Protein backbone atom coordinates (compact mmCIF):
# COMPACT_ATOMS: atom_id res chain seq x y z
CA UNK A 1 0.00 0.00 0.00
CA UNK A 2 1.84 3.19 -1.08
CA UNK A 3 1.72 5.93 1.59
CA UNK A 4 -1.22 8.35 1.12
CA UNK A 5 0.00 11.71 -0.31
CA UNK A 6 -3.26 13.43 0.56
CA UNK A 7 -5.38 12.20 3.49
CA UNK A 8 -8.83 13.64 4.04
CA UNK A 9 -10.64 12.92 7.28
CA UNK A 10 -14.25 14.00 7.95
CA UNK A 11 -13.92 17.07 5.70
CA UNK A 12 -16.97 19.42 5.82
CA UNK A 13 -17.17 22.63 3.72
CA UNK A 14 -20.15 25.02 3.80
CA UNK A 15 -20.72 28.50 2.33
CA UNK A 16 -22.26 31.49 4.12
CA UNK A 17 -24.56 32.86 1.37
CA UNK A 18 -27.27 35.54 1.43
CA UNK A 19 -29.83 32.66 1.40
CA UNK A 20 -28.26 30.98 4.44
CA UNK A 21 -25.73 28.11 4.71
CA UNK A 22 -24.92 26.08 1.56
CA UNK A 23 -23.44 22.64 2.09
CA UNK A 24 -20.78 21.79 -0.55
CA UNK A 25 -18.80 18.92 1.08
CA UNK A 26 -20.03 16.71 3.93
CA UNK A 27 -18.03 14.17 5.99
CA UNK A 28 -15.60 13.15 3.24
CA UNK A 29 -12.84 10.84 4.41
CA UNK A 30 -10.54 9.28 1.82
CA UNK A 31 -6.87 9.16 0.81
CA UNK A 32 -5.04 9.90 -2.42
CA UNK A 33 -2.07 7.59 -2.78
CA UNK A 34 1.13 8.93 -4.30
CA UNK A 35 1.87 8.31 -8.02
CA UNK A 36 -1.77 7.44 -8.73
CA UNK A 37 -4.49 9.18 -10.76
CA UNK A 38 -7.54 9.60 -8.59
CA UNK A 39 -10.64 10.61 -10.55
CA UNK A 40 -13.28 12.48 -8.54
CA UNK A 41 -16.48 12.12 -10.56
CA UNK A 42 -19.99 13.42 -9.99
CA UNK A 43 -22.49 15.79 -11.55
CA UNK A 44 -21.90 19.52 -11.35
CA UNK A 45 -22.77 20.89 -7.92
CA UNK A 46 -21.82 17.63 -6.23
CA UNK A 47 -18.90 19.43 -4.46
CA UNK A 48 -15.98 17.93 -6.39
CA UNK A 49 -14.53 21.29 -7.55
CA UNK A 50 -14.89 22.68 -4.01
CA UNK A 51 -12.92 19.72 -2.65
CA UNK A 52 -10.15 20.40 -5.18
CA UNK A 53 -10.09 24.10 -4.25
CA UNK A 54 -9.94 23.15 -0.56
CA UNK A 55 -6.77 21.11 -1.14
CA UNK A 56 -5.25 24.17 -2.86
CA UNK A 57 -6.48 26.49 -0.09
CA UNK A 58 -8.27 28.61 -2.69
CA UNK A 59 -11.76 28.58 -1.16
CA UNK A 60 -13.62 31.91 -1.38
CA UNK A 61 -13.64 33.87 1.89
CA UNK A 62 -17.30 33.02 2.64
CA UNK A 63 -16.42 29.33 2.86
CA UNK A 64 -15.94 27.45 6.16
CA UNK A 65 -13.95 24.19 6.10
CA UNK A 66 -13.60 21.69 8.98
CA UNK A 67 -12.05 18.27 9.46
CA UNK A 68 -8.53 17.51 8.25
CA UNK A 69 -6.73 17.47 4.93
CA UNK A 70 -3.10 16.58 5.13
CA UNK A 71 -0.53 16.71 2.35
CA UNK A 72 2.50 14.48 3.00
CA UNK A 73 1.63 14.67 6.68
CA UNK A 74 1.26 18.49 6.75
CA UNK A 75 -2.20 19.66 7.89
CA UNK A 76 -3.47 22.07 5.20
CA UNK A 77 -6.68 23.42 6.78
CA UNK A 78 -5.74 26.43 8.86
CA UNK A 79 -2.42 27.24 7.19
CA UNK A 80 -1.58 30.95 7.17
CA UNK A 81 -1.34 32.80 3.85
CA UNK A 82 2.46 32.82 4.10
CA UNK A 83 2.59 29.07 4.70
CA UNK A 84 0.25 28.42 1.76
CA UNK A 85 2.51 30.55 -0.47
CA UNK A 86 5.43 28.27 0.39
CA UNK A 87 3.74 25.08 -0.87
CA UNK A 88 1.48 26.33 -3.65
CA UNK A 89 3.09 25.89 -7.07
CA UNK A 90 6.01 23.92 -5.65
CA UNK A 91 4.11 21.11 -3.93
CA UNK A 92 0.57 21.56 -5.25
CA UNK A 93 -0.11 22.33 -8.91
CA UNK A 94 -3.51 23.67 -10.00
CA UNK A 95 -5.02 23.52 -13.45
CA UNK A 96 -8.24 25.54 -13.35
CA UNK A 97 -11.49 24.80 -15.10
CA UNK A 98 -11.89 27.16 -18.04
CA UNK A 99 -8.55 28.07 -19.61
CA UNK A 100 -9.84 31.17 -21.45
CA UNK A 101 -10.48 33.08 -18.23
CA UNK A 102 -7.68 31.48 -16.19
CA UNK A 103 -4.86 32.81 -18.36
CA UNK A 104 -4.34 36.52 -17.65
CA UNK A 105 -4.94 38.25 -21.06
CA UNK A 106 -2.40 40.96 -20.23
CA UNK A 107 0.69 38.70 -20.34
CA UNK A 108 2.11 36.39 -22.98
CA UNK A 109 1.94 32.62 -22.39
CA UNK A 110 5.72 32.28 -21.79
CA UNK A 111 5.50 34.95 -19.09
CA UNK A 112 2.62 33.11 -17.39
CA UNK A 113 4.45 29.80 -17.55
CA UNK A 114 7.78 31.03 -16.23
CA UNK A 115 6.78 33.81 -13.81
CA UNK A 116 6.52 31.40 -10.86
CA UNK A 117 9.89 29.85 -11.60
CA UNK A 118 11.51 33.28 -11.91
CA UNK A 119 9.79 34.45 -8.73
CA UNK A 120 11.26 31.48 -6.85
CA UNK A 121 14.65 32.09 -8.51
CA UNK A 122 14.55 28.62 -10.10
CA UNK A 123 15.53 30.25 -13.41
CA UNK A 124 16.80 33.67 -14.46
CA UNK A 125 14.62 35.95 -16.51
CA UNK A 126 16.91 35.46 -19.47
CA UNK A 127 16.01 31.79 -19.67
CA UNK A 128 12.27 32.53 -19.68
CA UNK A 129 11.70 31.66 -23.38
CA UNK A 130 13.65 28.40 -23.27
CA UNK A 131 11.99 27.28 -20.00
CA UNK A 132 8.51 27.94 -21.44
CA UNK A 133 9.41 26.28 -24.75
CA UNK A 134 10.38 23.03 -22.98
CA UNK A 135 7.07 22.90 -21.06
CA UNK A 136 5.03 23.78 -24.13
CA UNK A 137 6.56 20.98 -26.18
CA UNK A 138 5.98 18.66 -23.22
CA UNK A 139 2.20 19.34 -23.43
CA UNK A 140 2.30 19.02 -27.22
CA UNK A 141 2.30 22.71 -28.18
CA UNK A 142 4.74 24.46 -30.57
CA UNK A 143 7.36 26.57 -28.72
CA UNK A 144 6.16 29.69 -30.63
CA UNK A 145 2.89 29.55 -28.67
CA UNK A 146 4.86 31.20 -25.85
CA UNK A 147 4.79 34.55 -27.69
CA UNK A 148 0.99 34.48 -28.01
CA UNK A 149 -1.63 35.81 -25.63
CA UNK A 150 -4.45 33.70 -24.15
CA UNK A 151 -7.12 35.19 -26.45
CA UNK A 152 -5.09 34.05 -29.47
CA UNK A 153 -5.29 30.35 -28.57
CA UNK A 154 -8.02 27.81 -29.36
CA UNK A 155 -9.82 26.02 -26.48
CA UNK A 156 -7.60 22.94 -26.70
CA UNK A 157 -4.37 24.92 -27.00
CA UNK A 158 -5.36 27.10 -24.04
CA UNK A 159 -6.13 24.01 -21.96
CA UNK A 160 -2.71 22.54 -22.66
CA UNK A 161 -1.04 25.88 -22.02
CA UNK A 162 -2.83 25.94 -18.69
CA UNK A 163 -1.44 22.51 -17.88
CA UNK A 164 2.04 23.77 -18.82
CA UNK A 165 1.53 26.63 -16.40
CA UNK A 166 0.38 24.24 -13.67
CA UNK A 167 3.40 21.96 -13.97
CA UNK A 168 5.83 24.88 -14.16
CA UNK A 169 7.55 24.09 -10.86
CA UNK A 170 7.07 20.33 -11.30
CA UNK A 171 4.80 19.93 -8.24
CA UNK A 172 4.38 16.34 -6.96
CA UNK A 173 0.57 16.75 -6.65
CA UNK A 174 -1.44 18.04 -9.61
CA UNK A 175 -5.13 18.92 -9.34
CA UNK A 176 -6.90 19.12 -12.74
CA UNK A 177 -10.39 20.66 -12.67
CA UNK A 178 -12.53 19.55 -15.68
CA UNK A 179 -9.56 19.56 -18.12
CA UNK A 180 -11.63 18.11 -20.99
CA UNK A 181 -14.72 20.29 -20.63
CA UNK A 182 -16.00 21.57 -23.97
CA UNK A 183 -13.15 20.15 -26.05
CA UNK A 184 -13.56 18.67 -29.53
CA UNK A 185 -12.58 14.96 -29.87
CA UNK A 186 -9.11 15.70 -31.31
CA UNK A 187 -8.09 17.93 -28.39
CA UNK A 188 -9.85 15.54 -25.96
CA UNK A 189 -7.48 12.75 -26.93
CA UNK A 190 -4.43 15.06 -26.72
CA UNK A 191 -5.40 16.15 -23.17
CA UNK A 192 -6.05 12.55 -22.13
CA UNK A 193 -2.62 11.53 -23.41
CA UNK A 194 -1.03 14.52 -21.67
CA UNK A 195 -2.62 13.46 -18.37
CA UNK A 196 -1.35 9.88 -18.81
CA UNK A 197 2.18 11.17 -19.60
CA UNK A 198 2.13 13.32 -16.45
CA UNK A 199 1.04 10.32 -14.37
CA UNK A 200 3.79 8.33 -16.02
CA UNK A 201 6.38 10.91 -14.93
CA UNK A 202 5.45 10.28 -11.31
CA UNK A 203 3.03 13.14 -10.63
CA UNK A 204 0.13 12.28 -8.32
CA UNK A 205 -3.01 13.55 -10.04
CA UNK A 206 -6.43 14.43 -8.66
CA UNK A 207 -8.66 14.57 -11.76
CA UNK A 208 -11.96 16.36 -11.11
CA UNK A 209 -14.36 15.55 -13.95
CA UNK A 210 -17.99 14.78 -14.80
CA UNK A 211 -16.67 12.69 -17.76
CA UNK A 212 -16.91 9.08 -16.58
CA UNK A 213 -15.37 7.76 -19.84
CA UNK A 214 -12.24 9.83 -19.22
CA UNK A 215 -12.04 8.50 -15.65
CA UNK A 216 -12.30 4.99 -16.99
CA UNK A 217 -9.38 5.55 -19.38
CA UNK A 218 -6.88 7.34 -17.12
CA UNK A 219 -7.77 6.86 -13.45
CA UNK A 220 -6.34 4.35 -10.95
CA UNK A 221 -8.81 5.20 -8.18
CA UNK A 222 -12.40 6.45 -8.51
CA UNK A 223 -14.25 8.64 -6.01
CA UNK A 224 -17.94 9.24 -6.61
CA UNK A 225 -19.40 12.41 -5.06
CA UNK A 226 -23.11 13.01 -4.92
CA UNK A 227 -25.05 15.61 -2.94
CA UNK A 228 -21.81 16.77 -1.23
CA UNK A 229 -21.03 13.26 0.11
CA UNK A 230 -18.50 10.60 -0.99
CA UNK A 231 -20.92 7.81 -1.89
CA UNK A 232 -18.32 5.35 -3.23
CA UNK A 233 -14.57 4.95 -3.46
CA UNK A 234 -12.91 2.07 -5.31
CA UNK A 235 -10.07 1.01 -7.56
CA UNK A 236 -10.98 1.59 -11.22
CA UNK A 237 -11.32 -2.07 -12.35
CA UNK A 238 -13.52 -3.02 -9.34
CA UNK A 239 -15.63 0.14 -9.75
CA UNK A 240 -16.36 -0.29 -13.46
CA UNK A 241 -16.81 -4.06 -13.05
CA UNK A 242 -19.09 -3.98 -10.01
CA UNK A 243 -20.36 -0.52 -9.05
CA UNK A 244 -21.87 -0.97 -5.57
CA UNK A 245 -23.74 2.24 -4.82
CA UNK A 246 -27.07 2.55 -6.70
CA UNK A 247 -26.01 6.12 -7.81
CA UNK A 248 -22.75 4.70 -9.21
CA UNK A 249 -24.74 2.11 -11.12
CA UNK A 250 -27.06 4.80 -12.45
CA UNK A 251 -24.00 6.92 -13.38
CA UNK A 252 -22.47 4.08 -15.42
CA UNK A 253 -25.81 3.21 -17.03
CA UNK A 254 -26.00 6.83 -18.21
CA UNK A 255 -22.68 6.53 -20.08
CA UNK A 256 -23.00 6.69 -23.90
CA UNK A 257 -21.22 3.32 -24.20
CA UNK A 258 -23.82 1.75 -21.94
CA UNK A 259 -27.09 3.09 -23.40
CA UNK A 260 -27.50 6.68 -22.03
CA UNK A 261 -30.21 5.71 -19.47
CA UNK A 262 -30.87 8.88 -17.43
CA UNK A 263 -31.37 8.73 -13.66
CA UNK A 264 -34.93 9.84 -12.80
CA UNK A 265 -35.56 12.49 -10.15
CA UNK A 266 -33.85 15.71 -8.89
CA UNK A 267 -30.44 16.06 -7.24
CA UNK A 268 -30.62 17.32 -3.64
CA UNK A 269 -30.67 21.06 -2.82
CA UNK A 270 -27.42 22.80 -1.95
CA UNK A 271 -29.07 24.51 1.04
CA UNK A 272 -30.47 21.39 2.75
CA UNK A 273 -27.97 19.82 5.19
CA UNK A 274 -27.64 16.16 3.93
CA UNK A 275 -28.96 13.52 6.37
CA UNK A 276 -27.89 9.97 5.69
CA UNK A 277 -27.52 8.83 2.06
CA UNK A 278 -28.08 11.77 -0.33
CA UNK A 279 -29.43 9.42 -3.04
CA UNK A 280 -32.32 8.23 -0.86
CA UNK A 281 -35.06 10.08 -2.80
CA UNK A 282 -33.99 8.62 -6.16
CA UNK A 283 -32.78 5.19 -4.99
CA UNK A 284 -34.97 2.22 -6.09
CA UNK A 285 -33.82 0.29 -3.05
CA UNK A 286 -34.27 3.10 -0.52
CA UNK A 287 -35.53 2.17 2.97
CA UNK A 288 -36.29 4.31 6.01
CA UNK A 289 -32.92 3.52 7.62
CA UNK A 290 -31.09 5.07 4.67
CA UNK A 291 -31.95 8.50 6.17
CA UNK A 292 -29.82 7.82 9.26
CA UNK A 293 -26.91 6.20 7.41
CA UNK A 294 -23.80 8.06 8.52
CA UNK A 295 -20.69 5.91 8.04
CA UNK A 296 -19.65 4.16 4.82
CA UNK A 297 -19.03 0.45 4.90
CA UNK A 298 -15.91 -1.26 3.58
CA UNK A 299 -17.08 -4.45 1.76
CA UNK A 300 -13.54 -5.24 0.52
CA UNK A 301 -10.01 -3.92 0.97
CA UNK A 302 -9.60 -0.40 -0.57
CA UNK A 303 -13.31 0.07 -1.28
CA UNK A 304 -15.96 1.97 0.59
CA UNK A 305 -19.61 2.62 -0.14
CA UNK A 306 -22.26 4.62 1.64
CA UNK A 307 -25.15 2.14 1.32
CA UNK A 308 -27.05 -0.27 3.54
CA UNK A 309 -27.09 -2.91 0.81
CA UNK A 310 -23.40 -3.73 1.50
Amino acid at each position, binding site marked *: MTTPLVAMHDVNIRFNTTRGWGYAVTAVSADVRANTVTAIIGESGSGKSVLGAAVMGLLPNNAEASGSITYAGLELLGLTDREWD*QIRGIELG*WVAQNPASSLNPVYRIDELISEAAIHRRRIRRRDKRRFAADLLTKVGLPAATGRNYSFELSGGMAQRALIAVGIGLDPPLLILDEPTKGLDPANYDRIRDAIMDLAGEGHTIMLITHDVTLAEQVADEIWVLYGSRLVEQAPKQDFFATPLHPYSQGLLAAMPSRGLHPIPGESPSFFVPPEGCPFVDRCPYAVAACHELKTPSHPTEGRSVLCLLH
Partner: protein
Amino acid sequence: MTNLLRVLARHLIQGVLTLLGITVLSFLLGHIAPGDPAYAILGSDGVTVPTEEQVQVVRESLGLDRSVVEQYFLWLGQLFRGNIGVSFMTNRLIEQELLARIPVTVQLSLLAITFLVLTSLPLGLFLALHKDSLLDHLFLGLTSLFSAVPGFLVALVLILIFAEGLRLLPTSGLNGPTSLILPALAISLGSMTQITRVLRAELLAAFGTEYFQSARAKGFPFRFAAVKHALPNAMSSVLTLWGNYFIAILGGSAVAESIFALPGLGQWVLKSINSHDYPAIQAYVLVMGVLCLMIFLVVDLLQLAIQPRLRRAS
Protein backbone atom coordinates in the same frame (compact mmCIF):
# COMPACT_ATOMS: atom_id res chain seq x y z
CA MET B 1 0.94 47.05 -35.45
CA THR B 2 -2.00 47.28 -37.84
CA ASN B 3 -4.33 47.47 -34.86
CA LEU B 4 -2.51 50.48 -33.50
CA LEU B 5 -2.92 52.27 -36.80
CA ARG B 6 -6.55 51.25 -37.02
CA VAL B 7 -7.27 52.62 -33.54
CA LEU B 8 -5.42 55.83 -34.34
CA ALA B 9 -7.32 56.16 -37.62
CA ARG B 10 -10.64 55.58 -35.85
CA HIS B 11 -9.63 58.20 -33.35
CA LEU B 12 -8.62 60.69 -35.94
CA ILE B 13 -11.94 60.41 -37.77
CA GLN B 14 -13.91 60.54 -34.53
CA GLY B 15 -11.78 63.46 -33.37
CA VAL B 16 -12.25 65.40 -36.59
CA LEU B 17 -15.99 64.81 -36.50
CA THR B 18 -16.21 65.91 -32.88
CA LEU B 19 -14.01 68.94 -33.53
CA LEU B 20 -16.20 69.92 -36.48
CA GLY B 21 -19.18 69.57 -34.18
CA ILE B 22 -17.47 71.80 -31.65
CA THR B 23 -16.77 74.43 -34.31
CA VAL B 24 -20.48 74.45 -35.14
CA LEU B 25 -21.31 74.79 -31.44
CA SER B 26 -18.84 77.65 -30.95
CA PHE B 27 -20.01 79.35 -34.17
CA LEU B 28 -23.63 79.18 -33.00
CA LEU B 29 -22.56 80.58 -29.64
CA GLY B 30 -21.18 83.61 -31.43
CA HIS B 31 -24.46 83.90 -33.29
CA ILE B 32 -26.87 83.76 -30.41
CA ALA B 33 -24.80 86.40 -28.63
CA PRO B 34 -26.77 89.62 -28.20
CA GLY B 35 -25.52 92.78 -29.85
CA ASP B 36 -24.15 93.18 -33.32
CA PRO B 37 -20.46 92.39 -33.94
CA ALA B 38 -20.30 95.24 -36.45
CA TYR B 39 -21.32 97.71 -33.75
CA ALA B 40 -18.81 96.16 -31.38
CA ILE B 41 -15.93 96.49 -33.84
CA LEU B 42 -16.95 100.01 -34.86
CA GLY B 43 -17.44 101.04 -31.29
CA SER B 44 -13.99 99.91 -30.31
CA ASP B 45 -12.02 102.10 -32.70
CA GLY B 46 -13.29 105.36 -31.24
CA VAL B 47 -16.09 106.22 -33.66
CA THR B 48 -18.53 107.52 -31.08
CA VAL B 49 -21.91 106.82 -32.74
CA PRO B 50 -21.41 104.64 -35.83
CA THR B 51 -23.62 105.78 -38.71
CA GLU B 52 -25.94 103.34 -40.50
CA GLU B 53 -23.79 103.14 -43.66
CA GLN B 54 -20.64 102.46 -41.66
CA VAL B 55 -22.38 99.62 -39.88
CA GLN B 56 -23.58 98.26 -43.22
CA VAL B 57 -20.05 98.39 -44.66
CA VAL B 58 -18.64 96.49 -41.70
CA ARG B 59 -21.50 93.97 -41.87
CA GLU B 60 -20.57 93.27 -45.48
CA SER B 61 -16.90 92.92 -44.64
CA LEU B 62 -17.77 90.43 -41.90
CA GLY B 63 -20.16 88.69 -44.26
CA LEU B 64 -22.93 89.10 -41.74
CA ASP B 65 -25.46 89.68 -44.47
CA ARG B 66 -24.99 86.21 -45.98
CA SER B 67 -26.83 83.07 -44.87
CA VAL B 68 -25.80 81.48 -41.62
CA VAL B 69 -24.41 78.39 -43.31
CA GLU B 70 -22.27 80.53 -45.64
CA GLN B 71 -21.02 82.52 -42.72
CA TYR B 72 -20.07 79.33 -40.93
CA PHE B 73 -17.91 78.11 -43.79
CA LEU B 74 -16.39 81.57 -44.19
CA TRP B 75 -15.53 81.56 -40.50
CA LEU B 76 -14.23 77.97 -40.72
CA GLY B 77 -12.02 79.00 -43.64
CA GLN B 78 -10.56 81.75 -41.49
CA LEU B 79 -10.04 79.21 -38.72
CA PHE B 80 -8.00 76.87 -40.89
CA ARG B 81 -5.78 79.76 -41.84
CA GLY B 82 -5.05 80.06 -38.15
CA ASN B 83 -6.84 83.35 -37.84
CA ILE B 84 -9.07 82.75 -34.83
CA GLY B 85 -10.09 86.36 -34.88
CA VAL B 86 -9.36 89.62 -33.16
CA SER B 87 -10.45 90.07 -29.57
CA PHE B 88 -12.89 93.01 -29.25
CA MET B 89 -11.41 93.76 -25.84
CA THR B 90 -7.70 94.09 -26.44
CA ASN B 91 -7.62 94.42 -30.24
CA ARG B 92 -4.78 91.96 -30.01
CA LEU B 93 -4.89 88.83 -32.11
CA ILE B 94 -6.49 86.09 -30.05
CA GLU B 95 -3.59 83.77 -30.81
CA GLN B 96 -1.26 85.95 -28.77
CA GLU B 97 -3.59 85.66 -25.78
CA LEU B 98 -3.95 81.91 -26.32
CA LEU B 99 -0.22 81.29 -26.67
CA ALA B 100 0.41 83.12 -23.41
CA ARG B 101 -2.37 81.35 -21.53
CA ILE B 102 -2.64 77.77 -22.79
CA PRO B 103 0.58 76.64 -21.07
CA VAL B 104 -0.70 77.79 -17.67
CA THR B 105 -3.98 75.87 -17.99
CA VAL B 106 -2.22 72.79 -19.41
CA GLN B 107 0.41 72.78 -16.65
CA LEU B 108 -2.29 73.20 -13.99
CA SER B 109 -4.42 70.39 -15.40
CA LEU B 110 -1.45 68.06 -15.94
CA LEU B 111 -0.28 68.58 -12.35
CA ALA B 112 -3.85 67.95 -11.12
CA ILE B 113 -4.03 64.77 -13.19
CA THR B 114 -0.64 63.66 -11.85
CA PHE B 115 -1.82 64.19 -8.27
CA LEU B 116 -4.92 62.21 -9.20
CA VAL B 117 -3.02 59.24 -10.59
CA LEU B 118 -0.31 59.26 -7.91
CA THR B 119 -2.84 59.10 -5.10
CA SER B 120 -5.67 57.00 -6.48
CA LEU B 121 -3.42 54.16 -7.77
CA PRO B 122 -1.76 53.32 -4.45
CA LEU B 123 -4.80 54.32 -2.37
CA GLY B 124 -7.22 52.26 -4.50
CA LEU B 125 -4.87 49.28 -4.23
CA PHE B 126 -4.42 49.73 -0.48
CA LEU B 127 -8.16 49.94 0.16
CA ALA B 128 -8.87 46.91 -2.02
CA LEU B 129 -6.26 44.95 -0.07
CA HIS B 130 -7.81 46.12 3.20
CA LYS B 131 -11.44 45.71 2.25
CA ASP B 132 -13.93 46.46 5.05
CA SER B 133 -11.17 47.72 7.33
CA LEU B 134 -11.89 50.86 9.33
CA LEU B 135 -9.91 52.90 6.80
CA ASP B 136 -11.95 51.39 3.98
CA HIS B 137 -15.26 52.44 5.49
CA LEU B 138 -13.83 55.82 6.41
CA PHE B 139 -12.75 56.38 2.84
CA LEU B 140 -16.08 55.34 1.34
CA GLY B 141 -17.83 57.83 3.62
CA LEU B 142 -15.27 60.44 2.58
CA THR B 143 -16.00 59.77 -1.08
CA SER B 144 -19.70 60.48 -0.87
CA LEU B 145 -18.87 63.57 1.22
CA PHE B 146 -16.35 64.86 -1.28
CA SER B 147 -18.65 64.26 -4.21
CA ALA B 148 -20.93 66.85 -2.65
CA VAL B 149 -18.26 69.51 -2.00
CA PRO B 150 -17.70 71.86 -4.95
CA GLY B 151 -14.15 72.60 -6.11
CA PHE B 152 -14.24 76.22 -5.02
CA LEU B 153 -15.07 75.31 -1.41
CA VAL B 154 -12.16 72.87 -1.38
CA ALA B 155 -9.97 75.72 -2.70
CA LEU B 156 -11.08 78.09 0.06
CA VAL B 157 -10.34 75.52 2.76
CA LEU B 158 -6.93 74.72 1.22
CA ILE B 159 -6.01 78.42 1.15
CA LEU B 160 -7.11 78.84 4.76
CA ILE B 161 -5.03 75.88 5.94
CA PHE B 162 -1.92 75.73 3.75
CA ALA B 163 -1.47 79.31 2.60
CA GLU B 164 -2.68 81.55 5.37
CA GLY B 165 -2.49 79.05 8.21
CA LEU B 166 0.74 77.11 7.72
CA ARG B 167 2.17 79.68 5.28
CA LEU B 168 3.63 76.84 3.23
CA LEU B 169 2.31 77.74 -0.22
CA PRO B 170 1.51 81.01 -2.02
CA THR B 171 -2.13 82.09 -1.80
CA SER B 172 -2.44 83.16 -5.41
CA GLY B 173 -0.68 84.42 -8.49
CA LEU B 174 1.86 82.62 -10.64
CA ASN B 175 5.30 83.27 -9.26
CA GLY B 176 7.29 80.12 -9.16
CA PRO B 177 6.27 76.50 -9.56
CA THR B 178 4.87 76.14 -6.03
CA SER B 179 1.92 78.34 -6.93
CA LEU B 180 0.35 75.52 -8.96
CA ILE B 181 0.21 72.99 -6.14
CA LEU B 182 -2.84 74.28 -4.24
CA PRO B 183 -4.93 75.05 -7.35
CA ALA B 184 -4.15 71.61 -8.79
CA LEU B 185 -5.17 69.98 -5.52
CA ALA B 186 -8.36 72.03 -5.34
CA ILE B 187 -9.66 70.80 -8.67
CA SER B 188 -8.53 67.20 -8.34
CA LEU B 189 -9.54 66.34 -4.75
CA GLY B 190 -13.19 65.83 -5.64
CA SER B 191 -12.45 63.49 -8.51
CA MET B 192 -9.63 61.81 -6.56
CA THR B 193 -12.06 60.15 -4.17
CA GLN B 194 -14.38 59.08 -6.98
CA ILE B 195 -11.57 57.58 -9.04
CA THR B 196 -10.12 55.74 -6.04
CA ARG B 197 -13.51 54.26 -5.24
CA VAL B 198 -13.96 53.08 -8.82
CA LEU B 199 -10.47 51.58 -8.97
CA ARG B 200 -11.05 49.83 -5.63
CA ALA B 201 -14.29 48.29 -6.98
CA GLU B 202 -12.56 47.12 -10.17
CA LEU B 203 -9.70 45.60 -8.16
CA LEU B 204 -12.11 43.71 -5.91
CA ALA B 205 -13.80 42.37 -9.04
CA ALA B 206 -10.39 41.34 -10.42
CA PHE B 207 -9.60 39.49 -7.16
CA GLY B 208 -12.60 37.27 -7.87
CA THR B 209 -11.47 36.25 -11.34
CA GLU B 210 -10.02 32.85 -12.27
CA TYR B 211 -6.74 34.25 -13.62
CA PHE B 212 -6.18 35.81 -10.20
CA GLN B 213 -6.97 32.51 -8.51
CA SER B 214 -4.53 30.67 -10.75
CA ALA B 215 -1.89 33.32 -9.97
CA ARG B 216 -2.45 32.61 -6.29
CA ALA B 217 -2.26 28.89 -7.10
CA LYS B 218 1.31 29.49 -8.30
CA GLY B 219 2.24 30.53 -4.80
CA PHE B 220 2.31 34.32 -5.37
CA PRO B 221 1.47 36.25 -2.16
CA PHE B 222 -1.84 38.16 -2.35
CA ARG B 223 -0.20 41.60 -2.56
CA PHE B 224 2.17 40.53 -5.34
CA ALA B 225 -0.62 38.90 -7.35
CA ALA B 226 -2.77 42.02 -6.77
CA VAL B 227 -0.15 44.32 -8.29
CA LYS B 228 1.01 42.07 -11.07
CA HIS B 229 -2.22 40.42 -12.16
CA ALA B 230 -5.20 42.33 -10.79
CA LEU B 231 -4.02 45.94 -11.22
CA PRO B 232 -3.37 45.96 -15.00
CA ASN B 233 -6.76 44.43 -15.68
CA ALA B 234 -8.51 46.78 -13.26
CA MET B 235 -6.69 49.72 -14.87
CA SER B 236 -7.85 48.75 -18.35
CA SER B 237 -11.47 49.00 -17.31
CA VAL B 238 -11.17 52.26 -15.32
CA LEU B 239 -8.93 54.10 -17.74
CA THR B 240 -11.69 55.28 -20.07
CA LEU B 241 -13.69 56.39 -17.05
CA TRP B 242 -10.63 58.30 -15.80
CA GLY B 243 -10.57 60.11 -19.12
CA ASN B 244 -13.89 61.69 -18.18
CA TYR B 245 -12.49 62.80 -14.82
CA PHE B 246 -9.48 64.36 -16.57
CA ILE B 247 -11.90 66.30 -18.79
CA ALA B 248 -13.76 67.48 -15.69
CA ILE B 249 -10.46 68.69 -14.22
CA LEU B 250 -9.64 70.59 -17.39
CA GLY B 251 -13.03 72.30 -17.04
CA GLY B 252 -12.50 72.90 -13.33
CA SER B 253 -9.26 74.79 -14.07
CA ALA B 254 -11.45 77.83 -14.83
CA VAL B 255 -12.63 77.91 -11.21
CA ALA B 256 -9.11 77.41 -9.82
CA GLU B 257 -7.69 80.10 -12.08
CA SER B 258 -10.35 82.55 -10.94
CA ILE B 259 -9.74 81.90 -7.22
CA PHE B 260 -5.94 81.64 -7.37
CA ALA B 261 -5.59 84.43 -9.96
CA LEU B 262 -3.63 82.26 -12.41
CA PRO B 263 -3.28 83.82 -15.90
CA GLY B 264 -4.76 80.78 -17.69
CA LEU B 265 -7.52 80.21 -20.25
CA GLY B 266 -10.24 80.11 -17.59
CA GLN B 267 -9.36 83.52 -16.15
CA TRP B 268 -9.13 84.93 -19.65
CA VAL B 269 -12.55 83.67 -20.73
CA LEU B 270 -14.16 85.07 -17.57
CA LYS B 271 -12.56 88.44 -18.35
CA SER B 272 -13.79 88.18 -21.94
CA ILE B 273 -17.31 87.55 -20.70
CA ASN B 274 -17.17 90.78 -18.71
CA SER B 275 -16.30 92.64 -21.89
CA HIS B 276 -18.72 90.73 -24.16
CA ASP B 277 -15.73 89.63 -26.19
CA TYR B 278 -17.53 86.85 -28.13
CA PRO B 279 -14.66 85.84 -30.46
CA ALA B 280 -12.62 85.14 -27.31
CA ILE B 281 -15.35 82.89 -25.91
CA GLN B 282 -15.54 81.03 -29.23
CA ALA B 283 -11.78 80.55 -29.21
CA TYR B 284 -11.95 79.25 -25.62
CA VAL B 285 -14.50 76.59 -26.58
CA LEU B 286 -12.37 75.52 -29.56
CA VAL B 287 -9.15 75.27 -27.57
CA MET B 288 -10.83 73.30 -24.79
CA GLY B 289 -12.26 70.97 -27.45
CA VAL B 290 -8.80 70.33 -28.84
CA LEU B 291 -7.31 69.78 -25.37
CA CYS B 292 -10.08 67.30 -24.54
CA LEU B 293 -9.46 65.38 -27.76
CA MET B 294 -5.81 65.14 -26.83
CA ILE B 295 -6.74 63.73 -23.43
CA PHE B 296 -9.05 61.15 -25.02
CA LEU B 297 -6.29 60.21 -27.48
CA VAL B 298 -3.72 59.78 -24.70
CA VAL B 299 -6.16 57.69 -22.68
CA ASP B 300 -6.79 55.43 -25.66
CA LEU B 301 -3.08 55.06 -26.34
CA LEU B 302 -2.58 54.10 -22.70
CA GLN B 303 -5.42 51.64 -23.14
CA LEU B 304 -3.55 50.11 -26.07
CA ALA B 305 -0.40 49.93 -23.99
CA ILE B 306 -1.92 47.95 -21.15
CA GLN B 307 -4.44 45.82 -23.11
CA PRO B 308 -2.73 43.46 -25.57
CA ARG B 309 -6.21 42.31 -26.59
CA LEU B 310 -6.78 45.66 -28.34
CA ARG B 311 -3.33 45.64 -29.93
CA ARG B 312 -3.36 42.09 -31.17
CA ALA B 313 -6.93 40.95 -31.76
CA SER B 314 -7.52 40.35 -35.49
